[in-house]
């Protein structure tokens, strides 16, 4: 794995771009950006991003490894695909944003406490246990992610919605005891472990 290098020598050189090409999903597209800014103008969440996709692509070319990977910008993407539709150079911008976020997460550089990242982590941990999403546990985990007191407050605020779902048979309180799982729980866990192993090997993260 290439180490972070922000010395003057690496600026506007190919090192970080090459790292992105090798390790980020669709990263080979980054060099094709022509800096028109249509993605930045098309993003409905544009003002919430610290760096627009256009800037992120330029930062990658400028060798700003730490700044890019530690940024929370690509975590702001809601996958609306406006940028992909409009990009005159046909860059799969949404995919690249998710790829960058994933790569930063795997390197441990992604910003701590970033809400999108938190929810993604909770969702993933919940899912891999049984091969099925346990909605009750997932909701509770969300309520209690900021501490016990806040969790109780959140749960009380959502009480009527929860009871309504129970009455309509959309939520089974018994799921708290472990819940249902897919037919071959250990099989799916092995499959995920293998997939991760392959990906790690490919990205040099093992």
């Amino acid at each position, binding site marked *: 794995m290439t180490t972070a290098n922000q010395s003057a020598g690496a600026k506007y050189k190919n090192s970080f771009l090459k790292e992105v090409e090798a390790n980020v999903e669709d990263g080979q597209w980054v060099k094709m950006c022509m800096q028109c800014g249509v993605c930045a103008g098309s993003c409905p969440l544009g003002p919430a991003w610290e760096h627009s996709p256009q*800037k992120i692509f330029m930062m990658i070319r400028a060798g700003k490894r730490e700044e890019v990977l530690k940024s929370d910008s690509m975590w702001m993407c809601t996958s609306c695909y406006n940028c992909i539709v409009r990009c005159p150079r046909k860059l799969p911008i949404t995919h690249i944003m998710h790829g960058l976020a994933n790569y930063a997460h795997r390197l441990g550089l992604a910003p701590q406490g970033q809400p999108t990242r938190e929810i993604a982590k909770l969702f993933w941990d919940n899912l891999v246990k049984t091969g099925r999403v346990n909605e009750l546990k997932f909701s509770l985990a969300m309520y209690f992610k900021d501490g016990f007191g806040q969790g109780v407050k959140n749960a009380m605020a959502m009480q009527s919605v929860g009871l309504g779902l129970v009455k309509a048979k959309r939520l089974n309180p018994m799921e708290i005891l472990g819940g249902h799982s897919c037919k071959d729980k250990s099989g799916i866990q092995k499959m995920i472990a293998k997939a991760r192993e392959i990906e790690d090997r490919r990205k040099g993260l093992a």
Partner: protein
Amino acid sequence: MNTTSAPATPKHAAYICSGCGIGDTLDVAGLEKVAKTEGKMAVIKTHPFLCNAEGVQMIRDDIANDGVTHVCIAACSRRAKAEAFQFDGIALSRANLREGVIWVVAEGSDHDEVRQEMAEDYVRMGCAEVKKMTAPAGNVKETSSKKILVVGGGMSGMTAALAAADAGYEVVLVEKTGALGGFASNLYKRVPFNGPYAEPQPTGVEEMAAKVSGNGKIKVYLNSTVAETAGAPGRFAVKIAAESGSVTEELCGAVVQATGFTTYPLDKLPELGGGQANVVDQAGLEALAKAANGGAIKRADGKEVKSVVFVQCAGQRGTGGNGSGSHLEYCSGHCCATSIKQAMYFKGQNPDIDTVVMYSDLRVPGMGEDFYRSAQQKGVIFTKAKVTGVKGGDSCQVEFKDLILDEEVSTDADLVVLATGQVPNAGVNLDEWTATVTAAESGDEAAKGKKTELQKISVLNLNYRQGPDMPQFKYGFADSHFICFPYETRRTGIYAAGPTRRPMDMFQATEDAIGAAMKAIQAVENVEKGRAAHPRAWDLSFPKARLEGCTQCKRCTVECPFGAIDEDEKRFPLFNEERCRRCGTCMGACPVRVISFENYSCDTVGMQIKAVNVPDEFEEKPRILILACENDAYPALDMAGVQRMTYSAFVRAIPVRCLGSVNTIWITDALNSGYDGVMMMGCKKGDDYQCHFVKGSEMAYYRMSKIDDTLKQLGLEPERVQTHEIAITDNARVVKLINEYVEQLNEIGPSPMKGFG
């Protein structure tokens, strides 16, 4: 040399068409009466469909059997049915009753009277005009050469020579250096001309030079320059001086000037590291790449280049580019694609070499976008940046502002390439020449020396009174009618091609050269038939001067936009008809009115002005004369008619060849005859001119700026003469201008001159 074919006894005939609604809207019998009693036409006939075979045959029969020599056609605009109403050797005028009257005067019986008056006036004018005309006989010269002289043996020159030779014309190619190829022969490779536009291509210069040398129709003079060009299209006597001192004379019909460009001097760009170690321009990098010949590109000190930065717009585009802003004002157009190509030299040899292109706007015209994409694919980094400084040396430093990330940064590189601009090789600046010659003639010794220096840099060494080269366009590029007719220059039969005309890349230069060769061929063919070149192509008339009345004021020789008029040994104007484009600017300039064309003269227009029936002041029917340029303003008036817009029936429009041909006598005549106002409509003047004759409309504006005095002498308001710039698309605007002017004149009141005319 000039013959006239007009028979001894002229016979005038008027033909009135009653088709297209003319007969339904107008009293044709009344028009016939006007043609007879006032027009004094010997033959008057009306036909319901004059432009059909039967109508045209009727006219032809009268010409053949009845001795008709002068024809006035009262039908549609002179711009319509021109082919049907074309009779060789016959003087022809057109009274515009359709576009000029029935289509533009408001409908309804309320307007019957003014509509009929307008039509009758146009018939009067048509009859008056044709009586003052003779049929143009052309200007055929017996010793006319069709050989094409190409000056410059680079990509443009060789392409032009091959194009002309392939079309069957003899070519003389003069090249200053000892070999063909020009700038292109210094290149390692060129930008691709064909799909997939992905890789640099071999230049093909050697093959092309071999083709030129081996072509039996092309005679190549190497190590030679043009020492003198005398004469005119069809008979240019060209002295070709070899370095050895020998002079050969060639008789040529037309000239293609393909003298290319020089690169902007690198040492003028110290702020971008110009002149320092390991900072080169694009030409310098081509030399390094050529030396490497596909191997690792090495700097002058022998070190292999591992990182390179390209600085775009170096000393170009004024403050929009890189550098101090006090260099070239323009974009040279080719440099972005050239840097892309050169970055590929490095990537092609070793993909690990860091190549950064710093641009503010990447301009890759045509299919260059594919080439750009290909470079990105290869990993060339493109950075939108403003470079603030370059330091050369073993490790070059480039200081710049990243315009996307909005921060001041710097990077290092083994080599920095500056994309500098093209400086045209266009010869002598004629303004400078005129000033120098004037000073030299008054005995200034320094000016005499400077004149000799200027003669040395001249490309064509024309012996024209107006100077030795083509007039220059903006930024010192050789003349070109940039907006409408890019190949046209102000020196008839001499066409500029390639980067001497405007900045361009190799592909554009080859296309340009083919165009210029085609124009040169047109020129020699037109000369052979004694007719004009663009924009009055095929016109057989040409200016004649009654020299016995000439006062030698020299205004015609100075004002001719095409340098067609020299001076003879007695200092009288000497017309070179083949150089003339028939605009009539000389005729407009002449204060004693001795210059005229057979079918266009002070009289043909003057008599039309006087033929109009001007009502007295109590009738409340003002009369406004419109002198409209036939190239743009008159078509705009016609189009207003085609679209059935309505304008005042008080105007009388006369087409003129160019506003430059308007002689002030016409204005004075009109005002003396009791017209209430005069509108002159011509093309846009200035740097972005649209005048087909380049300087004609400008001359007209200049002359009219001085007419206020004349108006004061006559006791008239300055508003009574107006000048407008009209584009061919201004049909709605022209209607608005006319109607507003009629309103304005109503407020001013009738001309006090009425009744004195």
